[in-house]
């Protein structure tokens, strides 16, 4: 049975609703599903969806059941011409926008809101063989530009580049923790 992503989200909601109903029934020790119970669960669900799924981190950390499995055949995303011959860095934010950079392209390609067709946005920079990319919750983008001696930051509000830190060479790993400390692993 083939469902699209919206259907999955709806099913997730139903499962969540079912689980919360179980908890409510146990808690109130009532067998009858009252309007009050419905209201309580719906508000709970709303809060949960609005606030708890928007994590303090900018990326996704899904939860899995034990022994979860993945399809053994992958699909190629997106079209090869957008990622160059050596795609290296990928970052998916909590809204499922996908950011990709590659070694020999000096652009960031962004697919917003799961659009799987053409690259929906391209940001050009003076990047030299970038390895890694990290995007913060407000949409600012940090990119390895180590071969130019820097980690660069794209400020989304002004649409400008600034230098975020100086590094001796490229960073294959780039990370920003919840206190906005910037980490870069350097291998040369």
């Amino acid at each position: 049975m083939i469902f699209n992503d919206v259907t999955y989200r709806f099913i997730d909601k139903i499962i969540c609703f079912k689980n919360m109903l179980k908890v409510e029934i146990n808690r109130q020790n009532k067998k009858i599903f009252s309007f009050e119970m419905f209201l309580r669960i719906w508000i709970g669900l709303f809060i949960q969806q609005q606030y708890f799924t928007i994590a303090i981190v900018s990326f996704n950390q899904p939860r899995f059941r034990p022994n979860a499995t993945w399809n053994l055949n992958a699909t190629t995303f997106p079209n090869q011409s957008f990622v160059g011959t050596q795609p290296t860095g990928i970052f998916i934010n909590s809204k499922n926008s996908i950011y990709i950079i590659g070694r020999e392209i000096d652009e960031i390609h962004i697919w917003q809101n799961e659009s799987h067709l053409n690259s929906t946005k391209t940001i050009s920079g003076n990047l030299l063989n970038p390895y890694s990319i990290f995007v913060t919750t407000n949409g600012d983008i940090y990119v390895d530009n180590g071969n130019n001696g820097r980690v660069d930051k794209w400020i989304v509000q002004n649409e400008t580049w600034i230098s975020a830190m100086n590094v001796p060479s490229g960073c294959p790993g780039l990370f920003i923790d919840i206190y906005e400390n910037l980490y870069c692993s350097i291998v040369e």
Partner: protein
Amino acid sequence: MRIYIVPLLSNHRVDKKWSNGTTTIVAGTGVRGSESDMLNYPWGIFVDINLDLYVADYDNNRIQLFRLNQRNGITVVGKESSKVTIELLYPTGIVLDGDRYLFIVDCGNNRIIGSDENGFRCIFGCSGYGHTNDKLYNPFSISFDSYGNIYITDRDNHRVQKIVKNKPCSKFFCF
């Protein structure tokens, strides 16, 4: 903003750089090596909400965990890990899922390692490198979407691969 730097071939240590420009070391001795306080080509990094730093220690074939303010790393995955895990070959990428289980790009083995309460296992590309849709060739980094699908930069196949999570099925429906 405070800045940490995780190096380095040149001095193989982890520095912490503050906004005023001063740099302090948070891990590593300045010598490239395989002791618990050393690194050898640190590659992908991940910092969880407790500020524990996970490093894909490429040439040491291991994942090192540096707890906040600890200079000695703990090998959490690899041949020399204290618990039985899985053998890695040149790991390049690391992420943690919502229950803090590790997912690793095992670049040298061209496969993706996942983990859960039952331990570590290969979840994709388990039969060696290749160019077909079930294989990878020098994969580099990893990211999850919100549905639990995994995206991999499959570097030497010149593509980005989306690995779709299977939905658990009941008799009639898949959820």
